[in-house]
């Protein structure tokens, strides 16, 4: 063992890494618990990569075979139901933990200088996560997925100027067909994972280089306490990962994924078409906007408002100058609180109505 380490050390000096890990501390304060959500999201992403690769061994991404291949996975492949259910549940938990991670970073103002790039890459991964969810939803090629994709891509199509070409690009034609499935499959297993890995790499390197952010003011406190990252924090992280894995297994066993009926372009939309829960708040909002507002289509207005809100949110490190200077910025807190309440309220409305 020692000789092995020495062999590597001669070629790529490990001394620096060991020193770095030894000196890495995690600050302790009232908000320390939020530090765990980034790690849990990372763990869930790893679970997605592993289960995704496993599903790829049997999944067939074509109009004729997609639904049948999932049926095969669910009924014939040993533990196929488990792998698919874990993939579905981990996707949902991932979005949940990512949202919690994002909001905790927002409220602790951890995006402030010098961590703007960490925030931006994180937001990029959040959007990619939504893309993963939207594209993955179609892959079983069942009725719900088919119509949800029709609606989702049609919404993209109402955007002025770029809408129509964007819709055709997404659908691979005028309508949602097997061509759409092929494209979404490609996005889901090649394009998005590639982009995500790059962003994740930058994100993690930045977190390591800059260390954990502390809430404004607390880093200068006289009774500042810290915990060594290695091994104390890392072991806590791993314990939590183990717990999450157990939760995943329980969810997958007791609430396995359903398959539904195969998509049929010549069947009426069944009742209960709704997107995944993390899109519900936007979806529900669109329902409340009248079909015509002044000279604009209600839908166009809704999408543009969400687009602008998303951009403002993404660029918060650049307009919240106060936090970067170390001053308190209450406006940001109120905006954040409003957004959280809005999302929670509209998600519930979308769920029960």
């Amino acid at each position, binding site marked *: 063992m020692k000789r092995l380490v020495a062999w590597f050390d001669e070629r790529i000096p490990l001394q620096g890494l060991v020193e770095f890990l030894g000196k890495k501390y995690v600050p302790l304060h009232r908000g320390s618990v939020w530090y765990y959500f980034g790690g849990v999201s990372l763990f869930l992403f790893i679970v997605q990569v592993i289960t995704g690769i496993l599903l790829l061994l049997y999944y067939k991404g074509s109009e004729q075979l997609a639904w049948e291949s999932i049926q095969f996975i669910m009924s014939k492949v040993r533990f196929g139901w488990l792998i698919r259910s874990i993939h579905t549940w981990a996707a949902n938990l991932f979005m949940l933990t990512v949202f919690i991670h994002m909001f905790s970073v927002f409220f602790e103002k951890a995006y402030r200088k010098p961590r703007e790039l960490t925030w931006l890459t994180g937001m990029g991964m959040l959007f990619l996560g939504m893309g993963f969810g939207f594209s993955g939803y179609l892959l079983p090629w069942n009725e719900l997925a088919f119509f949800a994709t*029709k609606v989702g891509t049609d919404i993209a199509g109402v955007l002025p100027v770029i809408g129509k070409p964007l819709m055709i690009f997404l*659908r691979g034609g005028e309508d949602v067909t097997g061509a759409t499935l092929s494209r979404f499959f490609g996005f889901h297993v090649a394009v998005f994972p590639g982009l995500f890995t790059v962003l994740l790499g930058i994100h993690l390197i930045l977190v390591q280089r800059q260390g954990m952010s502390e809430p404004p003011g607390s880093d200068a406190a006289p009774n500042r306490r810290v915990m060594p990252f290695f091994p104390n924090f890392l072991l806590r992280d791993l314990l939590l990962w183990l717990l999450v894995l157990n939760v995943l297994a329980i969810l997958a066993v007791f609430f396995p994924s359903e398959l539904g009926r195969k998509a049929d372009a*010549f069947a*009426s*939309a069944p009742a209960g078409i709704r997107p995944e829960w993390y899109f519900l708040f936007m979806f529900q909002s669109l329902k409340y906007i009248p079909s*015509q507002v002044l000279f604009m289509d209600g*839908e166009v207005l809704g999408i543009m408002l969400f687009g602008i809100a998303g951009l403002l949110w993404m660029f918060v490190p650049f307009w919240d100058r106060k936090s970067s200077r170390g001053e308190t910025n209450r406006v940001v807190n109120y905006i954040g609180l409003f957004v959280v309440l809005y999302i929670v309220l509209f998600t519930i409305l979308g769920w029960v109505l």
Partner: protein
Amino acid sequence: MNAGIESTSNVTTKRDFLKYVLGGALVTWVASLLYPLFSYLQPPRQAEVEVTSVNAGRLADIPKDSGTIIRFGNKPVLLVRSSTDQLRAFSAVCTHLDCTVQYKSDLGMIWCACHNGKYDLNGRNVSGPPPRPLEEYRVILKGEEVHITTMT
């Protein structure tokens, strides 16, 4: 071509000229790279058989107070036989967000399950989000056979 020997201003023009040539070449090169790429991303137009009329089956096979989705080329068309024995046909594509509508006999209306849009049996959008009426098709009875054709 006596620029080189004379003055520095001419040297700059020469350099500018080279800049333009090389810059232009770069732009052309990038464009020649991107053009096939973007063309590739645009799905090719599939040759579609222009359908103007389809046979929807025998009248006796269509129950009263029911709706059936008929294949009209690659578009779905909803054929409704109302409780008052009227035959109407509409595009089954909801004008809101592209879902496929259905006949709902308990309401006596055409209904879209996606966002609860409702149309009356003339295809008019009467409640919910749909912005326009459904596109209408003509129903023609030839003896026992029901035919659906485009309006024009």
